[in-house]
């Protein structure tokens, strides 16, 4: 007969705090808590002593003082008369914009290279392997500085794009031509890209000293509405298919809903691209010293963007490859046995499953890209690290406040990105019951 023996209910002895597993974890936690409090207290005491010795205090009022330095790339209006707080904000936006574009480019590069690396084509597979191994085994800092050197040393001068009178007479072209269908000029003074311009803007509103274009807001709203309409259309088509077994032809409706409103809106507002060019006289001879119109993007942005996307593209490549390889061949074979065509097999069977494997490493790559934008410091890209943790810190001498604030902002940024991506991940991951 089995006997269940209760733990002896003897008197509580002090040694039971160590030997009895029921109390031991409490003891350990109390000791750890005590040590932790002691440690933090020790740090704070040191901090107090050090601050007193240097005759400093902790205050964040410097954020409202005049900054007094210029920032080359500014997404919101900023001048050296603005506050350190606004400079911080400009820097934060610069961090976000380069991280955003680099994430997109890295994903595109990674997906293409990942699929190509698995292709049956021997040459292309090897080339992609070489790309991955070369770029991920050499420090990112080298790629950033190399890209910056290429942009600032190897790019032609703006005057090499000019048509002189002789050239027009003899019918020859200048030494360099604009790239990408004649829209973009890579020069040693920056990259000139076309600027989107609307002739009849809806006006701007100013929120917290930041001007926001109503035209852009309206365009975003129209796009969002179109996407929502398209989803409704697809849902309805699916319902019809479930009921009758026949899927109605909706691609033209879908296209119309997605593109129609926005095209109409852009036409109505007089949207066109302002292509950078030299002003010319009636003979076609270029005047002036630099490109007019368009947007001038600095070398540091381009170098950081290109280096980040190519370097992190290799990691995305590996994630995509691993995701596709993780799906067993039986899935493809079963799909073929059901009579699905290769395209539908890919989109309905392989990709949804591969995505579950790909997304977690992709999240961490996006986080890494965001954190690695700080390397722009090496090429004087004025992101959050360059403004708050760089010039502001040096000017005000408030290392403690600047560093803590900067860490906090990066922490919030990282947690927000990982939160957003985790929500997305939860929506695509396998629903287990």
């Amino acid at each position, binding site marked *: 007969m089995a006997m269940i023996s209760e733990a002896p209910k003897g008197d509580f002895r002090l040694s039971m705090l*160590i*030997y009895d597993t029921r109390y031991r*974890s409490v003891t*350990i*936690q109390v*000791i*750890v*808590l005590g040590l*932790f409090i002691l440690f933090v207290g020790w*740090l704070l005491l*040191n*901090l107090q*002593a*050090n*601050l007193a*010795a240097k005759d400093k205090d902790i205050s964040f009022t410097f954020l409202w003082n005049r900054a007094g330095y210029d920032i080359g790339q500014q997404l919101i209006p900023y001048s050296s008369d603005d506050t350190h707080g606004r400079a911080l904000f400009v820097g934060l936006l610069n961090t976000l914009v380069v991280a955003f574009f680099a994430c997109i480019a890295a994903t595109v590069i990674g997906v293409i290279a990942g699929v*190509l690396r698995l*292709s*049956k*084509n*021997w*040459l*292309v597979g090897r*080339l992609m392997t070489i790309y991955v*191994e*070369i770029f*991920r*085994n*050499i*420090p*990112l*800092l*080298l790629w950033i*500085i*190399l890209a910056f*050197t290429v942009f600032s*040393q190897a790019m032609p001068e703006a005057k090499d794009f000019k048509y002189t009178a002789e050239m027009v007479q003899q019918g020859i072209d200048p030494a360099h031509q604009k790239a990408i269908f004649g829209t973009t000029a890579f020069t040693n003074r920056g990259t000139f890209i076309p600027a989107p311009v609307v002739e009849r803007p809806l006006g701007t509103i100013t929120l917290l000293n930041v001007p926001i274009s109503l035209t852009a807001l309206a365009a975003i709203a129209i796009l969002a509405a179109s996407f929502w309409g398209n989803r409704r259309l697809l849902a309805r088509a699916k319902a019809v298919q479930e009921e009758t077994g026949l899927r109605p032809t909706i691609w033209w409706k879908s296209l119309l809903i997605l593109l129609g409103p926005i095209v109409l809106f852009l036409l109505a507002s007089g949207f066109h691209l302002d292509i950078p060019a030299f002003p010319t006289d009636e003979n076609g001879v270029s005047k002036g010293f630099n490109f007019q119109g368009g947007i001038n993007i600095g070398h540091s942005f381009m170098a950081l963007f290109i280096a980040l996307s190519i370097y992190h593209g290799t990691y995305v490549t590996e994630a995509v490859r691993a995701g596709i390889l993780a799906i067993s061949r039986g899935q493809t074979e079963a799909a073929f046995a059901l009579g699905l065509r290769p395209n539908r097999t890919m989109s309905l069977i392989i990709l949804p499953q591969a995505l579950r494997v790909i997304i977690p490493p992709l999240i961490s790559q996006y*986080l890494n890209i965001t*954190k*690695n934008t*700080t*390397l722009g*410091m*090496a090429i004087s890209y004025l992101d959050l*690290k360059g403004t708050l*943790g760089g010039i502001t*810190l040096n000017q005000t001498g408030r*290392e*403690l406040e600047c*560093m803590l604030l*900067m*860490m906090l902002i*990066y*922490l919030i940024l*990282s*947690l927000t990105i990982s939160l957003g991506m985790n929500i997305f991940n939860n929506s695509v991951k396998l629903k287990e019951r």
Partner: protein
Amino acid sequence: MPDTSFVRREMLAPQKPPAGQSGAVKWLRENLFSSPFNTILTIVGLWAVYSLVSGAAPWLLNGMWSPSSVDECREVLTNTLGEGATGACWGVVRTRWHQFMFGFYDQSAYWRPLLAFALLFVSLAPVLYFGLRSPSLMMVGGAGALLVLALWGVGTDSWHLALAFGVMVALAALAWVAPKRLLWVTLAFPATAYYLLWGGPVWGPIGVMVGFGVAYFVWHAAQVKIGVTPAAALGIALALVWWLMLQGKVTAVLAMAVPIELPAQSPDKFGGFLLSFIIGVSAISASLPLGILLALGRRSDMLLIKTLSVGFIEFVRGVPLITMLFTASLLLQYFLPPQTNFDLILRVIILVSLFASAYIAEVIRGGMASLPRGQQEAADALGLDYWQAQRLIIMPQALKVSIPGIVSSFISLFKDTTLVALVGLADPLVGITRIVRSDIYWKAAYWEPFVFVGAIFFIFCFSMSRYSMYLENKLKTDHR
């Protein structure tokens, strides 16, 4: 009527497959031109290879080693190959390689970092091949042979050459006689390497090691009586007492009485790959145990320990490494007792180790999560206590699973050592390159330093990743 019946008596020789179905043609057809799309890809790929090779090949093939300035190099190129010829001027590497490798370390003392580097491999031998005679001996012997070659290459004086040779021969003999005893070399390595690299009196590093010895012996003696965790706490407490209160006085007296010392090297002399290796190796070896502890903490049942571990890991993973480096250079001094002043390199090593340990903790946690629950339950059923279960059952399996992740963390840590340039240390990529290029003769050498430093990083990172793949295959025990 003629008899048309026919019975074949012998087999015909098999025919050769059609020309399109064998050999190179078949391979080309299957691998390069299997479909129109693949053909296009092949052509694009060939074009990419051609443009890469045609761009880089002349530059590499025309490379010059002898000229000792960029202008001279260009002149020679123009004279020999004609106007507009491009070529690499490797003279910058030839004349300045010692700065890329050692920074501003005293040239007469190059034997010290090199000996420390060889000892690193000696102390790795028992970690990789514990108690196995021939692989340990091969590793020690190989390190010794390379060391002697390297010392001869940097022109060490014969006395130190003989000293290093003697040390390596003694270690090789130890590896032959008692390979398990090599573990003592591993344990003594941190102090030895510090003494060799930084110099100064020998008693400081020895004093630090004595503290670890005190902690170990107290723990060993007391763990039977009071359990593993309290014994460890007691040991650490006594070691802290030794380090903070006694060590300084004792070592000062010893240094006066028995002055054994190497000429001290000031911290700003460290640079180049020497600095990368110091930071990389120490951060790697410190972050692995820290990471294991953090991973255990994160999976602990105790709420407080779990919260602290999660908080630390998530905080560190949320901020960029550069902010940690700037914490080391600007902020750490605020949180230490006033007038504490220690070397920026050590501060950077501490913060980089903390940074890497959070990532390693996550990798190891992943490995632990992949084990079935039954393993822990079986360990409990056998009556193993917490530490025995972790040491004998959980960790060996979890670490094996996490090898690829751990190695890729190490690789990124090693690559990230270049970032120390941003806090003013002379890393090989930015710091040393800037110094070299500030020389009037090498001002125009843009690409050569990048190619040289990048190639060395590539060799190390690539071989680390290949080694991890090999290890993963070797340790794989499932049958698939």
